[in-house]
């Protein structure tokens, strides 16, 4: 058979045949892009954010992430600290202790050097707090108008600590679903800052490293089955991805999920569902039923809003449902792309 006839031949993703903003939104369009182009081309699976490599006697986790946030500085963080936390957190989700990072910068001609210095200082401080070193990097400059100020890509390696791999295939019926704190702060903070929306209180991003919490969960013997940070696409997308990969049905109780009052109000105003709004310092944990209370107690040492939010119902089509405040159950599906502010 000639190469043109393989089934993995990239199909047009949609009528336009072009990359749209929605392809980066973490929803169905992103999944299509990965499943139809990247996974077949690279011949690798794509259901975890970090890969595990056997190296000598030990095991290393490796991950990479790009950061394109606008504005570069937002309440509660900036692109520099975000680029460190994001990659550190992806390593933690594989059950690895972060060791070292590499950072690549794409700078736009005309960007003030003072901005670059502020971002670099923020990265250094974040890395110091996370206990990782930034060992190597790269810098490219593009002509004015061909970049958006500053893009950062960080790549990280970590030493695997989890006694067994943390991946969707380990999810079992009866497992408990936990979330490590209140949700939806980062997405709203960045959106409000970008669009000049002002609320009575200042909503700050939750951007933070979460590897210490994971290391404690592992260290205190909690039987973790799968972890996922609730970044782009929010808590719902994280759980839908795991449920889909595991072919297990999940159900959450919406009333158990903490959303701060001001964040909830902003979501109401914009027509956003907080379950799909980005976080940068929260993760979903799927743990064996017997360990749920201990996991909760550990997570609450850091954030009292951490909660057991649902259960793994059993084998199925990989569907996530949510029980609402009135007792009715709705299906939560991957969004097509990003959430868009509604008209009324």
């Amino acid at each position, binding site marked *: 058979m000639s190469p043109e006839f393989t089934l993995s031949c990239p199909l047009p993703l949609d*009528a*336009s045949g072009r990359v749209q903003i929605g392809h980066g939104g973490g929803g169905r369009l992103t999944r299509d892009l990965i499943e139809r182009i990247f996974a077949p081309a690279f011949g690798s699976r794509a259901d975890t954010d970090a890969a595990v490599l056997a190296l000598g006697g030990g095991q290393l986790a490796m991950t990479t992430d790009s950061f394109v946030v606008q504005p570069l500085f937002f309440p509660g963080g900036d692109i520099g600290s975000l680029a460190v936390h994001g990659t550190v957190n992806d390593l933690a989700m594989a059950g690895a202790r972060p060791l070292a990072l590499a950072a690549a910068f794409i700078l736009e001609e005309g960007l003030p050097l003072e901005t670059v210095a502020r971002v670099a200082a923020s990265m250094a401080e974040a890395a110091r707090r996370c206990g990782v070193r930034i060992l190597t990097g790269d810098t490219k400059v593009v002509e004015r108008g061909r970049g958006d100020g500053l893009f950062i890509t960080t790549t990280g390696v970590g030493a695997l600590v989890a006694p067994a791999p943390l991946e969707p295939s380990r999810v079992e019926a009866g497992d408990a679903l936990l979330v490590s704190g209140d949700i939806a702060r980062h997405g709203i903070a960045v959106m409000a800052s970008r669009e000049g*929306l002002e609320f009575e209180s200042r909503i700050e991003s939750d951007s933070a490293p979460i590897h210490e919490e994971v290391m404690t969960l592992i260290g205190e013997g909690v039987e973790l089955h799968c972890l996922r940070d609730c970044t782009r696409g929010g808590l719902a997308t994280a759980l839908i991805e795991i449920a889909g990969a595991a072919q297990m049905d999940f159900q959450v109780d919406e009333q158990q999920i903490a959303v701060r009052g001001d964040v909830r109000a902003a979501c109401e105003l914009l027509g956003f569902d907080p379950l799909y709004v980005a976080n940068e310092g929260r993760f979903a944990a799927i743990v064996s039923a017997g360990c749920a209370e201990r996991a909760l107690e550990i997570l609450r040492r850091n954030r009292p809003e951490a909660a057991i939010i649902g259960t793994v119902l059993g084998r199925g089509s990989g569907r996530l449902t949510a029980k609402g405040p*009135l007792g009715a159950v*709705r*299906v939560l599906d991957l969004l097509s792309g990003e959430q*868009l502010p*509604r008209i009324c």
Partner: protein
Amino acid sequence: MKFIDEYRAAPAVLSALERLRRLATRPWNIMEICGGQTHAILRFGIDQLLPEGLRLIHGPGCPVCVTPASLIDAAIAMARTPGVILASFGDMIRVPGTRESLAEARSAGAGVRIVESPLAAVEMARRHPDAQVVFFGVGFENTAPATALAVSLAARQRVQNFSMLAAHVLVPPALEAILGAENCQVDGILAAGHVCAVEGERDYTRIAARYGTPIVVTGFEPLDLLCGILACVRQLEGGQAKVENAYRRAVRPAGNAKAQALVREVYEPADAIWRGIGLIPASGLRLREAYSDFDALLRFPSALREDSMQAGPCLAGQVLQGIIEPPACPAFGQACTPDHPLGAPMVSAEGACSAFYQYKRHVA
């Protein structure tokens, strides 16, 4: 959260449902006008909780969904013109025109920006004096005051590079088209609370009397919706057909006089094409002569082409009129999904098809 939490509290909602169960003795079809109401009904599963026989029909109340393809095509043509920025509310940009959506046009280089407010578009025009900024003014009576304010502000401050692509639609003429249709199955109406907050109840009194149909001004939270449904069923069971206000915390009978004056100053009624339904006389708004300098259709006269109402497997028109429910359409969930919408109600989160797809696909 004040004004939200108390209207979502389970005990109050469940007790209203209990009252509804005692009140309803026969099947009734009630249409909620607004897409925001449809969204809340499906999100909170209110349709699952209603007594048997009480059916909610999802009305045409998503302004994004009923905007004709020809106006979307015109917006795309403007956005493709060098030096033009087309500013739009977010949910409009994924709605397909004849060939593509604004989002697809943007990926091919057209100047499309999402804004949260029409005033932000005026500000954008001020900051980019070399560009032409067009605001895509979509929405019902509740959005019209904001776009009217933008036009009036641009006129007063002489922001000459701002213009308005007016695509507003009005609820009462559409309501009459639905209630006057031969195969109308609607027994009662939940009017859109925010629309009435601006325009008041006036038009509805006449319509309720003319078609013998109760109309209840209704809000958007679960308890609001149940109070609206309760009032509507009470009238139907008692053989009444009048206008009733179940959203008093927001709606006064005469509406908002200041907003009305602003809209009447800037706009006048005009015939409008509703996607999936057709032309409804005097159901839209166009800029008055005094503001014609700010009319995008006059500034870019070649942008608007004749509307081609598409035929095909999509039954959006029947869905928007409440004749069928989305899953009854042969394209629903098959050829037509939120990623590849054939009809407009599948695009906006408030569209009946999209709301069904998102929340109720497991039932279909």
